[in-house]
């Protein structure tokens, strides 16, 4: 299998599509950048799809080409990890709309031979999932052993189970929700307005002179980053401590460590992310409401589902709080689906799902192994 050129790191494929979109249009061709780890077994039954969050990418367990940092979920994915690359064939694809090689606003519109910019169609989470299904067709995988994701990745994972119930044996949904709340939408709107208020945004047509709205994107990232952390976590990490100084400057420099940290988060983000992609992906998340597509009743989405579900939330996550996971669990119970759910304790807010957490690993490991004997 290892000689198969479809498999391996830093892969890219152009699929003809067309991919029908929820907005009514379609996308063709569809570029997908992805990575695979491990070997696909003979009956293609060991495939695990990892779905990434808003600003993540396909580099789940390998070095990021722009930042040089290791994969974003190496505590969960790798040899001997719960998603065990010795045992599983792992796929992670950059979502469409993003900027790490899959079709998005920064890629070339074949009709104009220029970057799409804001002419790129507005996407939904379901569109991202349908694009991943095209990729699985290309890779020769009919049915996933598991689909796994945190945050926006969890939205994709759960949408997988309703769009392609026969293609998903097990689903792991971490720190996620079945819809975006008013508060979620509100924070995203702050980020989008920050980008669009940057004079260099210019209606999204900033690619030609390579002068992107970095200030706006950095502010968007700073605001979003606060929502990924907990108050207790921020207090523990920074408190009211001053940054490299003994007293307040009575000015507007980054006096506090927390200011300096946020500025750094904003500045380093713009080196690896496209502002228009940020607009498109946050929009897709805001449009997400799984119940809406099923007559307003979430349980209807899971009627007759044969998929096994495992949901995990974190007690300090106020972005997608436990109540959101519990709503999904109640719907799964109402539908009679096989569901597991646990709220774990962690000091680190929403970001907890990305950090080492032995209890999370124990749960996911046991859940996946149990699925292998079915």
């Amino acid at each position: 299998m290892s000689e198969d050129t479809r498999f391996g790191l830093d892969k890219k494929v152009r699929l003809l599509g067309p991919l029908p979109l929820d907005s009514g249009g379609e996308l063709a061709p569809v570029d997908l950048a992805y990575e695979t780890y491990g070997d696909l077994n003979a009956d293609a039954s060991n495939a695990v799809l990892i779905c990434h969050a808003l600003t993540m990418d396909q580099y789940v367990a390998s070095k990021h080409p722009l930042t040089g940092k290791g994969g974003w979920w190496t505590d969960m994915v790798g040899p001997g990890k719960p998603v065990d690359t010795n045992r599983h064939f792992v796929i992670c694809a950059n979502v469409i709309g993003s900027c790490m090689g899959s079709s998005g606003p920064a890629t070339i519109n074949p009709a104009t031979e220029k970057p799409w910019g804001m002419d790129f169609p507005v996407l939904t989470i379901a569109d991202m999932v349908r694009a991943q299904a095209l990729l699985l067709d290309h890779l020769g995988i009919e049915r996933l052993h598991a689909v796994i994701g945190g945050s926006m990745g969890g939205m994709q994972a759960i949408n997988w189970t309703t769009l392609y119930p026969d293609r998903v044996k097990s689903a792991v949904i971490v720190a996620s929700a079945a819809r975006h709340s008013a508060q979620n939408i509100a924070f995203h709107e702050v980020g989008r307005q920050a980008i669009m208020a940057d004079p260099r945004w210019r209606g999204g047509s900033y690619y030609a002179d390579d002068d992107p709205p970095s200030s706006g994107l950095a502010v968007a990232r700073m605001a979003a980053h606060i929502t990924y952390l907990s108050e207790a976590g921020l207090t523990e990490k920074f408190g009211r401590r001053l940054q490299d100084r003994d007293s307040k400057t009575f000015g507007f420099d980054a006096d506090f460590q927390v200011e300096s940290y946020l500025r750094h988060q904003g500045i380093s983000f713009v080196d690896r992310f496209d502002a228009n992609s940020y607009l498109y992906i946050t929009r897709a998340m805001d449009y997400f409401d799984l119940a809406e597509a099923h007559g307003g009743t979430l349980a209807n989405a899971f009627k007759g589902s044969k998929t096994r579900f495992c949901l995990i939330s974190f007690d300090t996550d106020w972005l997608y709080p436990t109540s959101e996971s519990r709503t999904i669990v109640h719907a799964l119970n109402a539908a009679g689906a096989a569901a597991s759910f646990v709220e774990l304790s962690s000091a680190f807010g929403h970001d907890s799902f990305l950090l080492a957490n032995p209890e999370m690993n124990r749960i996911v490991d046991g859940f996946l192994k149990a699925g292998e004997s079915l």
Partner: protein
Amino acid sequence: MNKLRPDLQIIADNVRPNARVLDIGCGDGALMAALRDQKQVDARGLEIDPTNVASAVSKGLSVVQGDADTDLSAYPDVSFDYAILSQTLQTTHRPDQIVDELLRIGKQAFVSFPNFAHWRVRMSLLIGGRMPVTRLLPQTWYDTPNIHHVTIDDFRALVRDGELKQEGQWFLSGDKQTGRGLANLLAEHAVFLLRR
């Protein structure tokens, strides 16, 4: 195979093979695992303690973290053959409503509980004048999760007043089954099988 707690063993022995079971307060899933492995039961669990849930899920069981007082309403009517509530009734806010819920969700319900009228409990209160601390009721009055102490005769009255059918009853003294005679005095523990 680890030995089951005696009340759980009674329940395990009396569940039909291939049944659908909801175990409320399932702990680390010991009963569910036994039912799955020995009787091919499709078992689901509800458990309040996250560490217990994690242990159960890591055994491959479908267990959700939740509270019997608030999370049973999500389960549809008659969605299980059995609803099981073992050593949890006395910790719920409204045991009568919980029993109603069990028999709404399950065709039948197993309920097990420690008997607060056991002679040792009675002696503790009568002679010692203190709230009893016994093997099955090991906590002191201020830190016990048991907020509705119940006796076998109390439970029988609940069954009678609710016009429920009682389809099985088992009594335990120590780890051994004991007879029905004077159960309210001699049994430390009771297991009932109910139907509406």
